[in-house]
């Protein structure tokens, strides 16, 4: 490590040398960048600062450099060099090098922004930037005010998300409470779920097993949890009827969870002795090997009912077509939009997206859960209102070709603040595009 005075001497000598060299060779130095502004990144944990500067006059990517093509070749900016020093370490011990100017980054020509993510919360930093020409000549430095990154307690850019969440959660909580008070709630019939009992019943009559596939996702996916809920009901019905249930799984954790679910269901049905843990078994994590295993079972054992509830991918059609071939009653439920058409084409009943998630509330018959469904509907109504309002305002703007006014302000507010990341902000204030880089 250099001592600080040698460093300064070095800088002086190099500056003097570069000055002499350029004077001798009549080379022009690149113009420096200007207006370096360093701010603490808002809404963060105090671990980054943002640097913005105005491009050099000899940067050919500078839109203000109108004579870009005439710029002296030796002065054309190739990069910007950014240096930093720590002026206050908030009581911590510092390396000597850190309290001197040190190069921390380099930005390409045309770039006017950099985020320093290597800062410590509460420390104070100085920054400076210079442009470096094609020949390696540096311009004079452009300095900035010192900055001290601090932590914010709440991420204000997500305030609208929090508001939406509270409204949505509020609806659900209100209707759960409403249901608790004993008032009746009506839910429309979901044919696919009604069909499950019929399917299990038929399997019992035919003396053949019921196959249940909980998708191929892991237990941390919400669709797998929704699938387990339906499994719980199917297992209970099977236990009551005395039918066999077979549950091959694609993930070990799902196998463990499914065993718990089925065991509890058998217990609840008063038939704990009929529970056979080995019928709930892990096959493989590999998607198509799993399909091969399950379809192999289907062709050999010919289950009378095949129920698919969970997250599925390309295997959906292979499973459902094989089930169709063996003549099983098939009920499917998934929230994978791309797989829905295949299930609809090949199964007797399909729970589409939301219906699948509503299954647990529907099947339980528990008023609290049904209340949450009602709350969900109001949340949906609220979302549709915003959607319609947005479409309405956007249509007005596009029909009237107006570029300012109440409508434009409202649309900008919806786009940038409510759906974007500008937080509460001020109405009619910002008009920045949420896509930033694309614009």
């Amino acid at each position: 490590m250099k001592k600080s005075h040698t460093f300064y001497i070095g800088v002086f000598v190099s500056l003097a040398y570069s000055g002499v060299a350029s004077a001798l060779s009549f080379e022009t130095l690149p113009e420096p960048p200007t207006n370096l502004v360093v701010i603490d990144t808002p809404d963060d944990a105090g671990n980054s600062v943002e640097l913005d500067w105005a491009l050099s006059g000899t940067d050919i990517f500078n839109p203000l450099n109108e004579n870009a093509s005439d710029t002296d070749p030796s002065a054309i900016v190739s990069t910007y060099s950014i240096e930093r020093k720590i002026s206050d370490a908030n009581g911590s011990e510092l390396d000597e090098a850190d309290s001197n100017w040190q190069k921390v980054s380099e930005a390409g020509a045309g770039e006017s922004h950099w985020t320093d993510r290597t800062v410590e919360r509460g420390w104070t930093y100085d920054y400076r930037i210079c442009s470096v020409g094609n020949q390696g000549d540096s311009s004079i430095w452009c300095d900035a005010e010192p900055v001290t990154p601090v932590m914010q307690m709440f991420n204000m850019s997500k305030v609208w998300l929090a508001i939406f969440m509270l409204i949505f959660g509020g609806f659900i909580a209100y209707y759960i409470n409403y249901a608790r008070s004993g008032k009746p709630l009506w839910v429309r019939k979901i044919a696919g779920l009604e069909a499950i009992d019929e399917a299990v019943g038929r399997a019992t009559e035919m003396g053949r097993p019921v196959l249940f596939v909980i998708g191929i996702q892991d237990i941390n996916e919400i669709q797998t949890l929704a699938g387990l809920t339906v499994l719980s009901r199917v297992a209970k019905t099977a236990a009551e009827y005395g039918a066999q249930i077979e549950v091959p799984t694609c993930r070990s954790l799902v196998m463990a969870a499914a065993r718990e679910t089925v065991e509890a269901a058998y217990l609840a049905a008063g038939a704990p002795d009929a529970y056979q843990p080995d019928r709930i078994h892990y096959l493989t994590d590999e998607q198509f090997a799993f399909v091969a295993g399950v379809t192999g079972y289907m062709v050999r054992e010919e289950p009378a009912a095949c129920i698919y509830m969970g997250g599925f991918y390309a295997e959906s059609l292979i499973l459902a077509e094989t089930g169709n071939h063996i003549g099983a009653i098939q009920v499917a439920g998934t929230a994978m939009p791309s797989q829905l058409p295949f299930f609809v084409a090949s199964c007797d009943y399909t729970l589409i997206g939301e219906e699948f998630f509503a299954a647990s509330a529907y099947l339980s018959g528990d008023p609290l859960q049904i209340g949450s469904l009602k709350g969900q509907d109001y949340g949906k109504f609220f979302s549709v209102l915003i959607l319609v309002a947005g479409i309405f305002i956007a249509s007005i703007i596009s029909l009237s070709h107006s570029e300012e006014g109440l409508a434009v302000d409202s649309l900008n507010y919806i786009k940038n603040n409510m759906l974007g990341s500008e937080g509460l902000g001020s109405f009619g204030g910002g008009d920045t595009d949420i896509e930033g880089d694309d614009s």
Partner: protein
Amino acid sequence: MLKILQNIDRRWVFLSMLLAVAIPVLAKTVFPVNISPQTMMVFNAIEDLPEGSRILLSYDFDPASQGELLPMAQAFTRHCSIKGHKQYYMALWPLGPPMVDLSIDTIESEYPNLVYGEDYMKFDYKTGGEAVIRMITQDLRGMFELDSKGVSLDEIPMTKNIKNIQDMDLIINVSAGDPGTKQWVQFAATPFGITTVSGCTGVQAPQMYPYIPEQLAGVLGAIKAAAEYEAAIDEVYPSIASNPKAQEAKRRMGPQLVAHSLMIGLIILGNIIFFVSRKRGLA
């Protein structure tokens, strides 16, 4: 006759599909390709970047969808190589790294002037899917300390100055499912405004179109779009047109045409049976 058709063994359907695919493959039938505006969006996203731009290529598919996605992935690799972009490869699927290796083989055999570590490199495989994306948008080394050969990123010329993938000029994602394009859009493209294009399977494509143009700069859906993309590259860089390996997707359009025609034939046949039997049922 109607009875025979009604109870037709599905194996006859299978056989006809086999022939529909096999005959054009064996006959090497190639049809002309019309380039759609959707494909041009993807092509331009890569073409318009200045030479030496940093491109992250995440190949999130496995051998199962290799037939549908590999030609597209290879076309991305060739296009980036011709343009002289810096290519950073990674894979989110456990069986994805070998797919990347196929692209690296292509670079080594067709563009021997490109140097590993300076023009292209491959990150080590890390499990975690979307968690990997979320981490590398903030801190690349927090997830990948090494490249796939075990070399530290600080020792590789093209990675030593990269802090996170916000430093990339473009993300190209070839995706067969989750984690894939959806996660790249949710955790990288949208929050950080990193321009992203996607190549995905036909089944996924309808889900990806809603992201255009703000969250995705373009989507290539299945083999048809891959063929168009190959044609777009051929037009601008005629030298590549003579490379038979760079025409894989176009070759696959032949079987696709015949197979699709067969499907339409089957649907029509199915409906004729349906209507005739309904009429007789009523009569």
